[in-house]
């Protein structure tokens, strides 16, 4: 981009500034860009602002002080210095080019031009519309902090700072998008995070050339990890500041994008998606128990349906004590179609639930439960066991902490169902092998996706199988290549 060459300087004549603002920013056309003309010690002074994003009370206060200059000062030669001095605000900066001025103005700062000066004064009076921190819907815990990230990047960095007061915490900001100029912040702790990773992320984000990223974090993610046709989530999202700062301490690099409450945690593996903050709010043993139950749920969400289908198709596989498994009557439709149809039915329900308003969703739930549950069996469409196993698999999906992973696993389940339906046992075995090998081929920012299972790392896998108590976890996970390996001293003095 040859932006730097074309940077327009600020014309000293204020009439020219006015014309520039009319032509390029649309002062007078766009109703949300306002401007106020003041005369201070006989010099014309212009104040530009964006109505929606400024704090009016502060602007009024500033104007009051500026007008008072006429009563209290008389040194006409030093007007710019006097004005700068009288701007009673902690964030006053100077800008030399019109491009900077326009960028700042449109982010909600006010700009003050003084006739005869080639510098503009910029005061940060931003106040963005937004909500206050609230517990995120997708990551609820029974006990623990109830605050969550919001759409405001400044608030978000503040929420992180509240938990990481380390002077080595870095919040680097990069603007992305030629037109949207969205702020993207890269957070990491300088002496823990891997330099290579930080540089790689910065390079990838700076290389983005796009008009705007209104889908914020998702767009950044797609540029960063090169997803292609792989349905599995390559980064973890969190809306919880405690989860985010915990990952900072582990040496992860966080990316936060303005206008989105979701932080991107990099690098991520499959097993980051199967953990939940709730496990860390309980005692280690209870946490481990919760986690194992969750693992069973996730495992069931992938393999239960195809495996049951296999046993129905080839009942001779069943060992003697398990002969009772399998439907008593096969029904009118092949089991594989029943399973896929019921699974898609649940998918209808889930999708509809996302955008159905609450008053209607109760009615929808009733209809769905009665239709899919009882009537479908009575009519002879589904056999009762199909409903049972599809329901277990669906609840297993809902027990997956990461929404993205649960959908990807659902796709894997449908794939396994189809290959098992067509090829029987060979399809199931080869399909399951493809699932595991396929996952281990994925790399997210040079990190093997199935680490620490494949490639195997005994210590790290223990951390995943057991929820180990915090005083016992002395090391940071080796996958992030931390510069400083120990979270706490190895031996207490």
């Amino acid at each position, binding site marked *: 981009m040859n932006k730097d060459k074309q940077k327009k300087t600020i014309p000293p004549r204020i009439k020219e500034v006015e014309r520039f603002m009319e032509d390029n920013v649309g002062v007078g056309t766009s109703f949300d860009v306002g401007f106020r003309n003041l005369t201070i010690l006989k010099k014309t002074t212009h104040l530009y602002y964006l109505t929606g994003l400024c704090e009016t009370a502060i602007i009024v206060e500033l104007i009051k002080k500026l007008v008072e200059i006429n009563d209290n000062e008389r040194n006409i030669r030093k007007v710019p210095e006097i004005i700068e001095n009288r701007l009673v605000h902690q964030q006053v900066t100077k800008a030399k080019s019109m491009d900077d001025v326009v960028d700042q103005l449109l982010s909600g700062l006010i700009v003050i031009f003084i006739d005869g000066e080639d510098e503009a004064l910029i005061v940060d009076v931003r106040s963005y519309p937004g909500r206050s921190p609230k517990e995120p819907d997708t990551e609820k815990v029974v006990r623990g902090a109830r605050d969550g990230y919001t759409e405001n990047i400044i608030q978000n960095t503040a929420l992180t700072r509240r938990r990481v007061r380390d002077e080595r915490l870095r919040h680097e900001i990069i603007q992305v998008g030629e037109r949207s100029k969205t702020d993207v912040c890269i957070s990491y702790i300088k002496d823990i995070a891997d330099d290579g990773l930080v540089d790689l992320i910065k390079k990838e984000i700076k290389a983005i050339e796009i008009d705007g990223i209104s889908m914020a974090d998702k767009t950044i993610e797609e540029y960063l990890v090169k997803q292609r046709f792989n349905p599995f989530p390559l980064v973890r999202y969190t809306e919880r500041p405690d989860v985010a700062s915990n990952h900072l301490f582990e040496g992860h690099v966080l990316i936060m994008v303005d206008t989105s409450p979701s932080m991107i945690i990099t690098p991520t593996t499959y097993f980051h998606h199967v953990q939940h903050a709730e496990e860390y709010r309980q005692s280690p043993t209870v946490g481990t128990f919760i986690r194992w139950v969750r693992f069973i749920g996730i495992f069931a969400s992938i393999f239960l349906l195809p495996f049951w289908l296999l046993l129905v198709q080839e009942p001779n*596989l069943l060992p003697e004590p398990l002969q009772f498994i399998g439907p008593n009557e096969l029904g009118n439709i092949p089991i594989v179609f029943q399973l896929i149809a019921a699974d898609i039915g649940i998918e209808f329900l889930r999708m509809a639930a996302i955008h159905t308003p609450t008053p209607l969703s109760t009615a929808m739930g009733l209809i769905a439960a009665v239709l899919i549950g009882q009537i479908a069996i009575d009519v002879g469409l589904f056999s009762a066991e199909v409903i049972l196993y599809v329901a277990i698999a669906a609840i297993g999906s809902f027990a997956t902490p990461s929404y993205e992973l649960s959908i990807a696993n659902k796709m894997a389940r449908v794939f396994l169902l189809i290959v098992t339906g067509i090829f029987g046992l060979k399809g199931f075995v080869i399909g399951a*092998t493809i699932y595991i*090998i396929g996952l281990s081929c994925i790399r997210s920012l040079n990190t093997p996706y199935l680490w620490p299972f494949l490639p195997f790392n005994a210590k790290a896998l223990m951390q995943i199988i057991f929820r180990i108590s915090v005083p016992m976890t002395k090391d940071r996970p080796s996958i992030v290549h931390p510069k400083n390996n120990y979270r706490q001293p190895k031996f207490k003095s």
Partner: protein
Amino acid sequence: MENEKLEQNKHEKPISVLGKALITGFIGGILWSFFGAIASYFNFTSVSPATFVLRSWLHTNWSDGWLGELISIIAIGLLSIITAIIYYGLLKKIEGIWPSAAFGIALWFVVFYLLQPVFPNVSHMTDLDSDTIITTLCLFLLYGTFIGYSITYEYQDVNNTTNQ
């Protein structure tokens, strides 16, 4: 290799990689032969870990039960350390996941074809049913990937950090 080790402070790391390789071998053997035992319980394969390790020599009641499988799984875990050493010695420098998958398949041929005379209880490769072949082949492929990819990754990881 020997020249690189001249600096004394480098001594410790290769040993720990080997140590990790041995653990990987042991756990890999246990894990995948456990899956093999489950597969044979559900009649995916006509051979199970115990068919190889125990039933070729022992014909008692308990060797057919779960105890036989358990002992065989542990025995395979120990044998698998040898596999890990072989991989560590020969192939640790080869990058990527596919060489280790190929290693697993090669291992399957060694066990089911070359070593078949050693296990009188296992029928000849051509006599096995196709389900057994596919299931065991997949298990060996995963086993090979598990051992190979882990050792290669660990080796490369340590090498990269020491070079920096």
